[in-house]
């Protein structure tokens, strides 16, 4: 230990554990939000979907061969919602804790809380808001099964572009000396990546004309809310849990000084 005496910095394991716990909390709360505000919309969309397929079946005079029992009942899927958001939250928490561990010393703030919150905020912008504008999520009954592979690839591409845009904003900001020029550079760097990314990726519009627009948009709002709850709670819970790794203030230890 070449640093000063006193308790050492928390280990990666300790930080990771906090990230996973924060992720579980965030995932369950996001699940609760989705259950309350999203499930009624999913139910309504599935009712439309089933009415449409029943109609198609009647038109071709098929017998009820297709009416086999679903693999998972609707109630099962509503429970499975919490499994999905819980697992997703845990995974995102692990990634956030890892990013924090590797990037903390590069974030130019003395506040751990600020560092954790800005990472979660950057992720919210990069992997939720930027993808949301280009590819707003769709309820069941919207979307052509034949294009699912193309849509999946485009979605993954926009996640990457979102993260690159946030990174570009930070890099651009750091090239400028004064505060307002930093802000302007960040916005320009961000927008250049987003505009180019939006232009390069294909548009998707598979909403049937008959699908009620208010149901579509209330579903999309519920989905946005779910993801905002996920990242907000994740950031806040992780920041809060970080405080338990801190040593007493009587032993101030300093980051090692790096010189160019």
């Amino acid at each position, binding site marked *: 230990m070449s640093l000063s005496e006193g308790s050492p910095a928390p280990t990666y394991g300790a930080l990771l554990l906090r990230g996973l716990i924060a992720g579980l909390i965030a995932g369950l709360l996001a699940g609760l939000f989705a259950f309350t505000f999203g499930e009624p919309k999913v139910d309504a969309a599935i009712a439309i979907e089933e009415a449409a397929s029943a109609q198609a079946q009647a038109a071709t005079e098929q017998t009820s061969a297709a009416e086999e029992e679903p693999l*998972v009942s609707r109630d099962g*899927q509503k429970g499975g919602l919490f499994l999905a958001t819980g697992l997703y939250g845990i995974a995102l928490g692990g990634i956030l804790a890892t990013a924090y561990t590797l990037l903390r010393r590069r974030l130019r703030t003395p506040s751990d809380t600020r560092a954790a919150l800005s990472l979660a905020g950057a992720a919210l912008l990069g992997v939720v808001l930027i*993808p949301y504008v280009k590819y707003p999520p*769709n309820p069941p009954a919207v979307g052509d099964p034949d294009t699912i592979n193309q849509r999946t690839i485009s979605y993954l591409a926009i996640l990457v572009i979102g993260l690159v845009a946030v990174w570009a904003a930070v890099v651009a900001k750091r090239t400028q000396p004064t505060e307002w020029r930093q802000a302007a550079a960040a916005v320009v760097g961000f927008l250049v990546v987003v505009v180019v990314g939006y232009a390069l990726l294909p548009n998707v519009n598979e909403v049937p004309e008959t699908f009620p627009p208010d149901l579509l948009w209330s579903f999309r709002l519920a989905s946005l809310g*779910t993801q905002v709850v996920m990242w907000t709670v994740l950031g806040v819970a992780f920041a809060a849990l970080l405080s338990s790794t801190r040593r007493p203030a009587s032993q101030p230890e300093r*980051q090692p000084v790096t010189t160019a």
Partner: protein
Amino acid sequence: MPKATTVGPLSTPAVSPRLLWTALVVVALMLLITYLVAFDQGAVSRSGMYLHELMHDGRHLLGVPCH
């Protein structure tokens, strides 16, 4: 790296090659979990379509393209 900076008390471990490898493995594991929730159709979970169907609503509400 630009000029010297001194920020608050130590809050993260020093980044060593060993830490980087561990982090890489952890992130790969975390991405595998997100893959299971968001995209897997039985190929990885070996549960047929069961897990896929079970987490169906979560996929839609998490903004992932589903069907």
